[in-house]
């Protein structure tokens, strides 16, 4: 199996740092892609921003750690944190099991809806990780 064979839903947008963004109205949900969780391995710790804090597209807004690695979470879009997935504090392994569902990280009130348009589509992201892993 090649590294691009993971599941990348078509209704999401993707970053070069392997986050996904789902946009519903003015609310964006952010998570890690299948590729990111698979490369990290068993996720054992998550540090997330507090509700109400601002995030800036491309800047780090939290940290995920696997047994062996520490990885920053980069915000795919700017805005203000509306909600964090508190379940992950006790059960960070949910990110490995369900990266697009129960494993979501934060919800953001998007400052600029046009920002999401600059992110990769599923097809572009799949191509990007194929190239990155070669």
């Amino acid at each position, binding site marked *: 199996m090649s590294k691009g064979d993971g599941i990348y839903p078509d209704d999401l947008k993707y970053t070069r740092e392997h986050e996904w963004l789902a946009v519903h109205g003015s609310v964006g949900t952010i998570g890690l892609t299948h590729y990111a969780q698979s490369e990290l391995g068993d996720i054992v710790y998550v540090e997330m921003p507090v509700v109400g804090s601002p995030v800036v597209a491309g800047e780090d807004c939290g*940290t995920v750690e696997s*047994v*062996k690695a520490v990885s920053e979470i980069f915000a795919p879009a700017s805005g203000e944190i509306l909600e964090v997935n508190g379940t992950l504090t006790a059960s960070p392994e949910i990110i490995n099991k369900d990266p697009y569902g129960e494993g979501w990280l934060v919800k953001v009130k998007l400052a600029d809806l046009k920002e999401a348009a600059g992110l990769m589509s599923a097809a572009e992201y799949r191509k990007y990780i194929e190239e990155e892993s070669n």
Partner: protein
Amino acid sequence: MVAEPPKTTPLTETCRALGGRMIDFAGWLLPVQFSSVLEEHQAVRTAAGLFDVSHMGEIEVRGPGALALVQRLTCNDAGQIPSGRAQYSVLTNDTGGVVDDVIVYRRGAAELLLVVNASNTAKDLAWIRDHADREVEVTDVSARWALLALQGPRASEILADLAATPPAALRPFAFAETTVAGVPGVVARTGYTGEDGFEIFCRPEAAADLFGRLIETGRSRGLRPCGLGSRDTLRLEAAMRLYGNDMDETTTLIEAGLESIVRFEKGEFIGRDALLRQRAAGPARRLVGFEMIDAGIARHGYRVMIDSVAAGTVTSGSPGPTVKKNIGLVYLPAVHAQTGSAIAVEIRGREARASVVPTPFYKRAR
């Protein structure tokens, strides 16, 4: 400097075929994990795991002066090892620091084998040769041996199905020449996981077959192929020091907490005077174990604070999957190196509380 492509072991392809995620580790292409570090760690604690550790170096010391040379270069008493047994020891320098930590296998008074850290093989070989006289022949035989580590509470029964010599007959640190699955080799009851287990030396060309036979035989008993990731969490829970992280040429054996393998009474060895002086005066710092109180994982290189003043650097740190705590090792000023000392680990600019605890973090039930 142009990076050399990593070296492969006789088991690199076998590991890749089994789904190993291969990384460059100290110049060797080795699996960091197969399916999951946590699952592999758990397999070794509760059933068994099989590791490729063929990157380890082997240095043979032969000749009438072999034992005397090893006695002069190491801190433990190789004179007390009966033939057919091995011993954990350290190649010391003049200041009582660690050139390398090694396992000395005594095949006879005139033939010893040192198993050394992969990244130190060339350095150790030069060091040993520099101190050898004509009575001794020192040879790097690393390329002649593949090395498999079969570790865990069910290792013995898995090996019993395949080995010509019953593994139960081997006491800890004993070894025997035998055949395993028809492959001639040496089986030693040693390891680096804190569990019962065996290390099996065989010819490189037979290693893939042997690895496959062990996996096949052990599968129904929970044996899994394991990578460097779980090897590191397993050894850290057992508080086994990792050369280059937890000790090196600048840390003495006393500071590193390895005084129990220093045999001053055996007579002269390199670094003995320095170690005696330090023992009398008391070391300024000691390597201790700690566990996190606050959330957060301490990692190698993170700063350790006491009363908001830098007091040391984490040498090893990770989650401890069996002890279910985030653990680590650090050199602290001797006055703070006591169980219960309150410390803090600087994690991304914030101080997370931790506490000095006794080691090992994990000790298997016997």
